[in-house]
Protein backbone atom coordinates (compact mmCIF):
# COMPACT_ATOMS: atom_id res chain seq x y z
CA UNK A 1 0.00 0.00 0.00
CA UNK A 2 1.13 3.50 -0.79
CA UNK A 3 1.00 5.94 2.10
CA UNK A 4 0.02 9.55 1.38
CA UNK A 5 0.01 12.43 3.84
CA UNK A 6 -2.40 15.23 2.95
CA UNK A 7 -2.39 18.82 4.20
CA UNK A 8 -4.88 19.47 6.99
CA UNK A 9 -7.45 21.22 4.82
CA UNK A 10 -7.54 18.35 2.35
CA UNK A 11 -7.87 15.82 5.18
CA UNK A 12 -10.92 17.75 6.33
CA UNK A 13 -12.31 17.86 2.83
CA UNK A 14 -11.79 14.14 2.26
CA UNK A 15 -12.98 13.38 5.80
CA UNK A 16 -9.93 11.34 6.70
CA UNK A 17 -7.87 11.41 9.84
CA UNK A 18 -4.21 10.56 9.46
CA UNK A 19 -2.41 9.06 6.51
CA UNK A 20 -4.26 7.78 3.48
CA UNK A 21 -3.37 4.32 2.20
CA UNK A 22 -3.83 3.57 -1.46
CA UNK A 23 -3.48 0.58 -3.71
CA UNK A 24 -1.66 1.58 -6.88
CA UNK A 25 -1.61 -0.62 -9.97
CA UNK A 26 1.63 -0.78 -11.94
CA UNK A 27 4.46 1.69 -11.64
CA UNK A 28 4.37 3.94 -8.60
CA UNK A 29 4.72 7.47 -9.90
CA UNK A 30 3.33 10.88 -8.96
CA UNK A 31 0.67 10.44 -11.62
CA UNK A 32 -0.38 6.94 -10.61
CA UNK A 33 -0.48 7.86 -6.93
CA UNK A 34 -2.53 10.99 -7.57
CA UNK A 35 -4.81 9.08 -9.93
CA UNK A 36 -5.42 6.54 -7.18
CA UNK A 37 -5.92 9.29 -4.62
CA UNK A 38 -8.53 11.03 -6.77
CA UNK A 39 -10.27 7.77 -7.60
CA UNK A 40 -10.55 6.97 -3.91
CA UNK A 41 -11.45 10.52 -2.85
CA UNK A 42 -13.16 12.18 -5.82
CA UNK A 43 -13.69 15.42 -3.92
CA UNK A 44 -9.93 15.96 -4.08
CA UNK A 45 -10.02 16.30 -7.86
CA UNK A 46 -8.86 19.76 -8.78
CA UNK A 47 -7.39 20.47 -5.34
CA UNK A 48 -3.93 18.98 -5.93
CA UNK A 49 -3.76 19.05 -9.72
CA UNK A 50 -5.50 21.39 -12.10
CA UNK A 51 -8.63 19.85 -13.60
CA UNK A 52 -7.57 20.59 -17.17
CA UNK A 53 -3.79 20.65 -17.31
CA UNK A 54 -3.28 17.99 -14.61
CA UNK A 55 -0.34 20.07 -13.40
CA UNK A 56 0.48 20.42 -9.71
CA UNK A 57 -1.22 23.47 -8.21
CA UNK A 58 1.40 26.16 -7.75
CA UNK A 59 1.22 26.45 -3.95
CA UNK A 60 1.62 22.71 -3.35
CA UNK A 61 4.82 20.68 -3.12
CA UNK A 62 5.52 16.95 -3.22
CA UNK A 63 8.08 15.54 -0.78
CA UNK A 64 9.24 12.01 0.05
CA UNK A 65 12.26 10.46 1.70
CA UNK A 66 13.58 13.92 2.63
CA UNK A 67 13.60 14.96 -1.03
CA UNK A 68 11.64 17.61 -2.87
CA UNK A 69 10.01 15.80 -5.79
CA UNK A 70 7.82 18.73 -6.86
CA UNK A 71 9.63 19.29 -10.11
CA UNK A 72 10.17 15.67 -11.07
CA UNK A 73 8.30 14.45 -14.16
CA UNK A 74 4.88 13.04 -13.21
CA UNK A 75 5.73 9.65 -14.69
CA UNK A 76 9.11 9.28 -12.98
CA UNK A 77 9.20 6.40 -10.49
CA UNK A 78 8.84 7.47 -6.87
CA UNK A 79 11.52 6.26 -4.43
CA UNK A 80 11.44 2.57 -3.62
CA UNK A 81 10.66 3.34 0.01
CA UNK A 82 7.43 5.02 -1.12
CA UNK A 83 6.58 2.19 -3.48
CA UNK A 84 7.19 -0.32 -0.68
CA UNK A 85 5.07 1.64 1.79
CA UNK A 86 8.01 2.28 4.12
CA UNK A 87 7.85 6.05 3.62
CA UNK A 88 4.86 8.26 2.86
CA UNK A 89 4.38 10.52 -0.13
CA UNK A 90 3.86 13.99 1.31
CA UNK A 91 1.57 16.59 -0.28
CA UNK A 92 2.56 19.82 1.38
CA UNK A 93 1.09 23.31 1.23
CA UNK A 94 3.70 25.94 0.50
CA UNK A 95 4.37 28.18 3.48
CA UNK A 96 2.97 31.69 3.38
CA UNK A 97 3.07 34.50 5.84
CA UNK A 98 5.66 35.45 8.44
Amino acid sequence: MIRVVLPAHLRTLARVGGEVQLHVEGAVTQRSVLDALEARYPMLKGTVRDHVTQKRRPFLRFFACEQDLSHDPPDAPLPDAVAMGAEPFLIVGALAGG
Partner: protein
Amino acid sequence: MSGVRILVGTRKGAFVLTSDGKRERWDVSGPHFAGWEIYHLKGSPADPNRIYASQTSGWFGQIIQRSDDGGKTWFPPGSKPDELATPQGMPKGESNKFVYDTSPKTGKPLTTHQWYDGTQHPWEFKRVWHLEPSLTDPDTVYAGVEDAALFRSTDGGQTWQELPELRGVKGHVWQPGAGGMGLHTIVLDPSLPERIFIAISAAGVFRSDDAGRTWRPVNRGLKSPYALPDPDAEVGHCVHRIAMHPSRPRVLFMQKHWDVMRSDDAGESWQEVSGNLPTDFGFAIDVHAHEPDTIYVVPIKSDSEHYPPEGKLRVYRSRTGGNEWEPLTKGLPQSDCYVNVLRDATAVDSLDSCGVYFGTTGGQVYASANAGDKWAPIVRDLPPVLSVEVQTLP
Protein backbone atom coordinates in the same frame (compact mmCIF):
# COMPACT_ATOMS: atom_id res chain seq x y z
CA MET B 1 -42.89 32.84 14.07
CA SER B 2 -40.92 34.30 11.22
CA GLY B 3 -37.18 34.61 11.47
CA VAL B 4 -34.01 35.65 9.75
CA ARG B 5 -30.93 33.69 8.75
CA ILE B 6 -27.81 35.58 7.76
CA LEU B 7 -25.16 33.80 5.71
CA VAL B 8 -21.76 35.37 6.25
CA GLY B 9 -18.73 34.54 4.13
CA THR B 10 -15.35 35.53 5.56
CA ARG B 11 -11.67 35.17 4.82
CA LYS B 12 -11.49 32.23 7.24
CA GLY B 13 -14.79 30.42 7.07
CA ALA B 14 -18.56 30.78 6.93
CA PHE B 15 -20.89 31.78 9.74
CA VAL B 16 -24.64 31.46 10.03
CA LEU B 17 -26.44 33.98 12.24
CA THR B 18 -30.07 33.33 13.13
CA SER B 19 -32.74 35.22 14.97
CA ASP B 20 -36.48 35.34 15.34
CA GLY B 21 -38.46 38.13 13.74
CA LYS B 22 -37.62 40.58 16.50
CA ARG B 23 -33.97 40.47 15.42
CA GLU B 24 -32.71 41.26 18.90
CA ARG B 25 -31.01 38.00 19.95
CA TRP B 26 -28.80 36.10 17.59
CA ASP B 27 -27.36 32.61 17.51
CA VAL B 28 -24.00 32.29 15.81
CA SER B 29 -22.89 29.03 14.21
CA GLY B 30 -19.49 28.52 12.64
CA PRO B 31 -16.90 28.68 11.46
CA HIS B 32 -17.96 26.30 8.74
CA PHE B 33 -15.09 25.34 6.40
CA ALA B 34 -12.69 26.86 8.93
CA GLY B 35 -9.59 28.39 7.44
CA TRP B 36 -10.94 28.62 3.89
CA GLU B 37 -12.01 31.77 2.11
CA ILE B 38 -15.76 31.77 1.70
CA TYR B 39 -16.45 34.29 -1.01
CA HIS B 40 -20.21 33.83 -1.02
CA LEU B 41 -23.13 31.79 0.26
CA LYS B 42 -26.68 32.12 -0.94
CA GLY B 43 -29.95 30.30 -0.33
CA SER B 44 -32.43 29.24 -2.96
CA PRO B 45 -35.53 31.46 -3.13
CA ALA B 46 -37.46 28.32 -4.07
CA ASP B 47 -36.23 26.26 -1.10
CA PRO B 48 -34.67 28.18 1.78
CA ASN B 49 -33.05 25.04 3.17
CA ARG B 50 -30.97 24.74 0.00
CA ILE B 51 -27.84 26.87 0.36
CA TYR B 52 -24.82 27.01 -1.90
CA ALA B 53 -21.36 28.11 -0.75
CA SER B 54 -18.19 29.00 -2.59
CA GLN B 55 -15.17 27.73 -0.66
CA THR B 56 -11.79 28.71 -2.06
CA SER B 57 -8.12 28.57 -1.29
CA GLY B 58 -5.01 29.81 -3.02
CA TRP B 59 -3.50 26.43 -2.24
CA PHE B 60 -6.28 24.00 -3.08
CA GLY B 61 -8.49 25.87 -5.50
CA GLN B 62 -12.26 25.91 -5.69
CA ILE B 63 -14.78 23.82 -3.78
CA ILE B 64 -18.55 24.12 -3.99
CA GLN B 65 -20.46 23.15 -0.88
CA ARG B 66 -24.18 22.65 -0.50
CA SER B 67 -26.54 22.40 2.42
CA ASP B 68 -30.01 20.91 2.19
CA ASP B 69 -30.93 21.64 5.80
CA GLY B 70 -30.53 25.37 6.12
CA GLY B 71 -26.82 25.39 6.84
CA LYS B 72 -26.62 22.78 9.58
CA THR B 73 -24.71 20.24 7.47
CA TRP B 74 -22.78 20.63 4.24
CA PHE B 75 -21.42 18.42 1.48
CA PRO B 76 -19.85 18.82 -1.95
CA PRO B 77 -22.70 18.22 -4.41
CA GLY B 78 -22.43 14.77 -5.91
CA SER B 79 -21.08 13.33 -2.70
CA LYS B 80 -23.72 12.75 -0.05
CA PRO B 81 -22.53 12.99 3.56
CA ASP B 82 -23.37 9.35 4.30
CA GLU B 83 -21.55 8.24 1.16
CA LEU B 84 -18.46 10.15 2.18
CA ALA B 85 -18.39 8.29 5.46
CA THR B 86 -18.10 4.86 3.84
CA PRO B 87 -15.14 3.41 1.95
CA GLN B 88 -17.17 2.38 -1.10
CA GLY B 89 -19.67 3.85 -3.44
CA MET B 90 -18.46 7.41 -3.67
CA PRO B 91 -19.83 9.16 -6.71
CA LYS B 92 -17.53 11.03 -8.99
CA GLY B 93 -17.48 14.52 -7.54
CA GLU B 94 -17.01 17.20 -10.14
CA SER B 95 -18.71 19.95 -8.22
CA ASN B 96 -15.54 22.03 -8.30
CA LYS B 97 -14.88 21.53 -12.00
CA PHE B 98 -15.15 24.91 -13.67
CA VAL B 99 -13.73 24.54 -17.14
CA TYR B 100 -14.18 27.25 -19.74
CA ASP B 101 -16.15 25.96 -22.71
CA THR B 102 -13.84 25.98 -25.71
CA SER B 103 -15.59 23.24 -27.64
CA PRO B 104 -16.10 23.97 -31.35
CA LYS B 105 -19.82 23.29 -31.10
CA THR B 106 -20.91 25.33 -28.08
CA GLY B 107 -17.93 27.28 -26.82
CA LYS B 108 -15.69 30.21 -27.54
CA PRO B 109 -11.93 30.00 -28.03
CA LEU B 110 -10.12 30.79 -24.80
CA THR B 111 -8.36 33.87 -26.04
CA THR B 112 -6.86 36.56 -23.85
CA HIS B 113 -8.05 39.56 -21.86
CA GLN B 114 -6.36 42.82 -21.06
CA TRP B 115 -3.86 42.82 -18.21
CA TYR B 116 -3.23 45.71 -15.83
CA ASP B 117 -0.53 47.11 -18.09
CA GLY B 118 -2.64 46.92 -21.23
CA THR B 119 -0.98 43.81 -22.63
CA GLN B 120 -2.95 40.67 -23.35
CA HIS B 121 -3.08 37.92 -20.72
CA PRO B 122 -4.34 34.33 -20.82
CA TRP B 123 -7.72 33.50 -19.31
CA GLU B 124 -7.29 31.42 -16.11
CA PHE B 125 -9.92 30.12 -13.72
CA LYS B 126 -9.25 31.23 -10.14
CA ARG B 127 -12.39 31.09 -8.01
CA VAL B 128 -16.14 31.56 -7.75
CA TRP B 129 -17.00 35.02 -6.50
CA HIS B 130 -20.79 34.82 -6.47
CA LEU B 131 -23.49 32.15 -6.51
CA GLU B 132 -26.99 33.04 -7.61
CA PRO B 133 -29.63 30.34 -7.23
CA SER B 134 -32.54 30.32 -9.66
CA LEU B 135 -35.68 32.08 -8.49
CA THR B 136 -37.76 28.98 -9.17
CA ASP B 137 -35.63 25.82 -9.25
CA PRO B 138 -33.44 24.85 -6.27
CA ASP B 139 -31.21 22.71 -8.50
CA THR B 140 -30.37 25.53 -10.89
CA VAL B 141 -27.68 27.94 -9.78
CA TYR B 142 -25.39 30.41 -11.53
CA ALA B 143 -21.77 31.03 -10.61
CA GLY B 144 -19.82 34.17 -11.40
CA VAL B 145 -16.13 33.39 -11.56
CA GLU B 146 -12.68 34.94 -11.85
CA ASP B 147 -11.32 35.20 -14.57
CA ALA B 148 -14.69 36.56 -15.52
CA ALA B 149 -17.22 34.11 -16.88
CA LEU B 150 -20.66 32.82 -16.04
CA PHE B 151 -21.34 29.16 -15.28
CA ARG B 152 -24.62 27.39 -14.64
CA SER B 153 -25.48 24.15 -12.89
CA THR B 154 -28.85 22.49 -13.35
CA ASP B 155 -28.14 19.50 -11.11
CA GLY B 156 -27.75 21.12 -7.74
CA GLY B 157 -24.13 22.12 -8.19
CA GLN B 158 -22.74 18.73 -9.21
CA THR B 159 -21.64 19.81 -12.68
CA TRP B 160 -21.12 23.22 -14.22
CA GLN B 161 -21.35 24.49 -17.77
CA GLU B 162 -20.08 27.84 -18.95
CA LEU B 163 -22.35 30.24 -20.83
CA PRO B 164 -19.49 31.09 -23.19
CA GLU B 165 -21.08 33.70 -25.44
CA LEU B 166 -20.59 36.24 -22.67
CA ARG B 167 -16.82 35.91 -22.86
CA GLY B 168 -17.07 36.63 -26.56
CA VAL B 169 -18.48 40.12 -26.03
CA LYS B 170 -15.23 42.03 -26.43
CA GLY B 171 -13.54 39.86 -23.82
CA HIS B 172 -10.18 40.93 -25.16
CA VAL B 173 -10.65 44.43 -23.71
CA TRP B 174 -11.93 43.34 -20.30
CA GLN B 175 -9.38 43.98 -17.58
CA PRO B 176 -9.00 43.08 -13.91
CA GLY B 177 -9.89 45.50 -11.16
CA ALA B 178 -7.68 45.71 -8.10
CA GLY B 179 -9.25 42.53 -6.72
CA GLY B 180 -9.02 40.56 -9.94
CA MET B 181 -11.24 40.17 -12.99
CA GLY B 182 -14.32 38.76 -11.34
CA LEU B 183 -17.90 38.32 -12.40
CA HIS B 184 -19.35 39.42 -9.08
CA THR B 185 -22.99 40.30 -9.66
CA ILE B 186 -25.78 38.17 -11.11
CA VAL B 187 -29.30 39.60 -11.09
CA LEU B 188 -32.21 37.49 -12.31
CA ASP B 189 -35.31 39.29 -13.54
CA PRO B 190 -38.42 37.91 -11.82
CA SER B 191 -40.71 39.23 -14.54
CA LEU B 192 -38.74 37.90 -17.51
CA PRO B 193 -37.35 34.45 -16.70
CA GLU B 194 -34.87 34.56 -19.57
CA ARG B 195 -33.39 37.93 -18.63
CA ILE B 196 -30.10 37.95 -16.71
CA PHE B 197 -27.93 40.91 -15.76
CA ILE B 198 -24.33 40.35 -14.77
CA ALA B 199 -21.53 42.74 -13.83
CA ILE B 200 -17.78 42.37 -14.09
CA SER B 201 -14.86 44.37 -12.74
CA ALA B 202 -13.63 45.82 -14.98
CA ALA B 203 -15.80 45.18 -17.99
CA GLY B 204 -19.23 46.53 -17.01
CA VAL B 205 -22.81 45.33 -17.09
CA PHE B 206 -24.04 42.77 -19.62
CA ARG B 207 -27.58 41.60 -20.27
CA SER B 208 -28.99 38.46 -21.76
CA ASP B 209 -32.62 38.22 -22.81
CA ASP B 210 -32.43 34.57 -23.83
CA ALA B 211 -31.28 32.76 -20.68
CA GLY B 212 -27.61 33.34 -21.31
CA ARG B 213 -27.32 32.24 -24.93
CA THR B 214 -26.45 35.72 -26.18
CA TRP B 215 -25.26 38.83 -24.39
CA ARG B 216 -24.70 42.49 -25.01
CA PRO B 217 -23.08 45.25 -22.96
CA VAL B 218 -25.46 47.75 -21.34
CA ASN B 219 -23.14 50.51 -20.17
CA ARG B 220 -24.31 53.64 -22.00
CA GLY B 221 -23.95 56.63 -19.74
CA LEU B 222 -21.11 55.26 -17.63
CA LYS B 223 -18.03 57.48 -17.54
CA SER B 224 -14.66 56.12 -16.41
CA PRO B 225 -12.02 58.70 -17.36
CA TYR B 226 -9.54 57.27 -14.81
CA ALA B 227 -9.51 53.93 -16.64
CA LEU B 228 -10.78 54.40 -20.17
CA PRO B 229 -9.54 57.03 -22.60
CA ASP B 230 -12.69 56.66 -24.73
CA PRO B 231 -15.54 58.52 -22.97
CA ASP B 232 -18.08 56.38 -24.82
CA ALA B 233 -16.40 53.04 -24.21
CA GLU B 234 -18.89 50.22 -24.55
CA VAL B 235 -17.01 47.91 -22.16
CA GLY B 236 -14.18 48.23 -19.66
CA HIS B 237 -16.07 50.00 -16.85
CA CYS B 238 -15.34 49.00 -13.29
CA VAL B 239 -18.86 48.32 -12.08
CA HIS B 240 -18.77 47.29 -8.44
CA ARG B 241 -22.34 46.19 -7.88
CA ILE B 242 -25.86 46.44 -9.27
CA ALA B 243 -29.14 46.03 -7.40
CA MET B 244 -32.77 45.68 -8.39
CA HIS B 245 -36.09 45.68 -6.57
CA PRO B 246 -38.08 42.66 -7.73
CA SER B 247 -41.27 44.65 -8.16
CA ARG B 248 -39.63 47.04 -10.62
CA PRO B 249 -37.09 45.03 -12.55
CA ARG B 250 -36.40 47.61 -15.25
CA VAL B 251 -34.91 49.93 -12.64
CA LEU B 252 -31.33 49.15 -11.70
CA PHE B 253 -29.04 50.87 -9.24
CA MET B 254 -25.27 50.73 -9.53
CA GLN B 255 -22.29 51.46 -7.36
CA LYS B 256 -19.53 51.99 -9.86
CA HIS B 257 -15.85 52.38 -8.95
CA TRP B 258 -16.68 56.06 -8.72
CA ASP B 259 -20.31 57.22 -9.22
CA VAL B 260 -23.64 55.90 -8.05
CA MET B 261 -25.81 55.34 -11.12
CA ARG B 262 -29.39 54.50 -11.98
CA SER B 263 -31.05 53.00 -15.04
CA ASP B 264 -34.80 53.15 -15.68
CA ASP B 265 -34.70 51.08 -18.84
CA ALA B 266 -33.10 47.77 -17.89
CA GLY B 267 -29.60 49.08 -18.41
CA GLU B 268 -30.09 50.69 -21.82
CA SER B 269 -28.95 54.01 -20.34
CA TRP B 270 -27.55 55.16 -17.02
CA GLN B 271 -27.73 58.46 -15.14
CA GLU B 272 -25.62 59.52 -12.21
CA VAL B 273 -27.49 59.84 -8.89
CA SER B 274 -24.55 60.45 -6.55
CA GLY B 275 -26.11 63.77 -5.46
CA ASN B 276 -24.94 64.92 -2.04
CA LEU B 277 -22.92 61.84 -1.07
CA PRO B 278 -19.66 62.74 0.68
CA THR B 279 -17.85 60.50 -1.81
CA ASP B 280 -19.35 58.43 -4.57
CA PHE B 281 -16.71 55.72 -4.41
CA GLY B 282 -17.84 52.50 -2.77
CA PHE B 283 -18.61 48.86 -3.32
CA ALA B 284 -22.03 47.93 -1.99
CA ILE B 285 -25.52 49.03 -2.97
CA ASP B 286 -28.88 47.58 -2.02
CA VAL B 287 -32.60 48.30 -2.21
CA HIS B 288 -35.18 48.32 0.60
CA ALA B 289 -37.41 45.25 0.52
CA HIS B 290 -40.69 47.17 0.35
CA GLU B 291 -39.77 50.61 -1.00
CA PRO B 292 -38.28 50.36 -4.50
CA ASP B 293 -36.97 53.93 -4.34
CA THR B 294 -35.20 53.51 -1.02
CA ILE B 295 -31.60 52.55 -1.61
CA TYR B 296 -28.49 52.17 0.51
CA VAL B 297 -24.78 52.72 -0.14
CA VAL B 298 -21.74 52.79 2.10
CA PRO B 299 -19.46 55.55 0.82
CA ILE B 300 -15.75 54.78 0.91
CA LYS B 301 -13.18 57.54 0.76
CA SER B 302 -11.45 56.68 -2.51
CA ASP B 303 -9.99 53.96 -4.68
CA SER B 304 -6.66 54.38 -2.92
CA GLU B 305 -8.08 54.70 0.60
CA HIS B 306 -10.56 51.90 1.16
CA TYR B 307 -12.20 53.13 4.37
CA PRO B 308 -15.00 55.50 5.32
CA PRO B 309 -14.40 59.24 5.02
CA GLU B 310 -13.24 60.89 8.26
CA GLY B 311 -13.13 57.52 10.02
CA LYS B 312 -16.93 57.62 10.36
CA LEU B 313 -18.85 54.52 9.32
CA ARG B 314 -22.00 55.86 7.69
CA VAL B 315 -24.60 54.13 5.59
CA TYR B 316 -26.32 56.56 3.27
CA ARG B 317 -29.98 56.12 2.42
CA SER B 318 -31.90 57.73 -0.39
CA ARG B 319 -35.68 57.60 -0.29
CA THR B 320 -35.92 59.20 -3.72
CA GLY B 321 -34.11 56.63 -5.82
CA GLY B 322 -30.88 58.58 -5.62
CA ASN B 323 -29.55 62.16 -5.66
CA GLU B 324 -30.84 63.02 -2.18
CA TRP B 325 -29.01 61.09 0.51
CA GLU B 326 -29.12 61.05 4.31
CA PRO B 327 -26.42 59.61 6.57
CA LEU B 328 -27.43 56.81 8.94
CA THR B 329 -25.12 56.81 11.92
CA LYS B 330 -26.96 55.69 15.06
CA GLY B 331 -25.11 52.74 16.52
CA LEU B 332 -22.25 52.92 14.00
CA PRO B 333 -18.74 54.05 14.99
CA GLN B 334 -18.29 57.73 14.27
CA SER B 335 -14.61 58.01 14.96
CA ASP B 336 -11.45 56.06 14.19
CA CYS B 337 -13.22 53.53 11.96
CA TYR B 338 -11.17 52.36 8.99
CA VAL B 339 -12.93 49.26 7.75
CA ASN B 340 -14.29 48.58 4.29
CA VAL B 341 -17.64 47.16 3.22
CA LEU B 342 -17.22 44.92 0.19
CA ARG B 343 -19.57 44.62 -2.76
CA ASP B 344 -21.38 41.47 -1.69
CA ALA B 345 -21.53 42.40 2.00
CA THR B 346 -24.90 44.14 2.28
CA ALA B 347 -28.34 42.57 2.32
CA VAL B 348 -31.92 43.23 3.36
CA ASP B 349 -34.61 41.02 4.87
CA SER B 350 -38.25 41.22 3.88
CA LEU B 351 -39.94 41.38 7.27
CA ASP B 352 -42.56 44.10 7.68
CA SER B 353 -40.00 46.48 9.06
CA CYS B 354 -37.21 45.95 6.59
CA GLY B 355 -33.97 44.76 8.15
CA VAL B 356 -30.70 45.96 6.66
CA TYR B 357 -27.38 44.22 7.24
CA PHE B 358 -23.76 44.69 6.31
CA GLY B 359 -20.42 43.15 7.14
CA THR B 360 -17.03 44.84 7.33
CA THR B 361 -13.45 43.92 6.68
CA GLY B 362 -13.00 44.46 10.42
CA GLY B 363 -15.17 41.43 11.14
CA GLN B 364 -18.32 43.18 12.31
CA VAL B 365 -21.79 42.37 11.04
CA TYR B 366 -24.17 45.23 11.72
CA ALA B 367 -27.94 44.94 11.67
CA SER B 368 -30.76 47.42 11.61
CA ALA B 369 -34.30 46.16 12.19
CA ASN B 370 -35.77 49.53 11.19
CA ALA B 371 -34.58 50.19 7.67
CA GLY B 372 -31.33 51.76 8.79
CA ASP B 373 -32.53 54.20 11.43
CA LYS B 374 -30.57 52.46 14.18
CA TRP B 375 -27.80 49.88 14.04
CA ALA B 376 -26.21 47.36 16.36
CA PRO B 377 -23.47 44.79 15.79
CA ILE B 378 -24.54 41.16 15.78
CA VAL B 379 -20.91 40.05 15.96
CA ARG B 380 -17.79 42.16 16.26
CA ASP B 381 -14.82 39.90 15.80
CA LEU B 382 -15.25 37.63 12.82
CA PRO B 383 -12.53 37.36 10.18
CA PRO B 384 -12.81 39.99 7.43
CA VAL B 385 -16.32 39.72 5.96
CA LEU B 386 -16.51 39.06 2.23
CA SER B 387 -20.25 38.58 1.81
CA VAL B 388 -23.56 38.83 3.63
CA GLU B 389 -26.82 37.33 2.44
CA VAL B 390 -30.11 37.22 4.31
CA GLN B 391 -32.91 34.70 4.22
CA THR B 392 -36.29 35.68 5.60
CA LEU B 393 -37.82 32.53 7.01
CA PRO B 394 -41.52 31.78 7.37
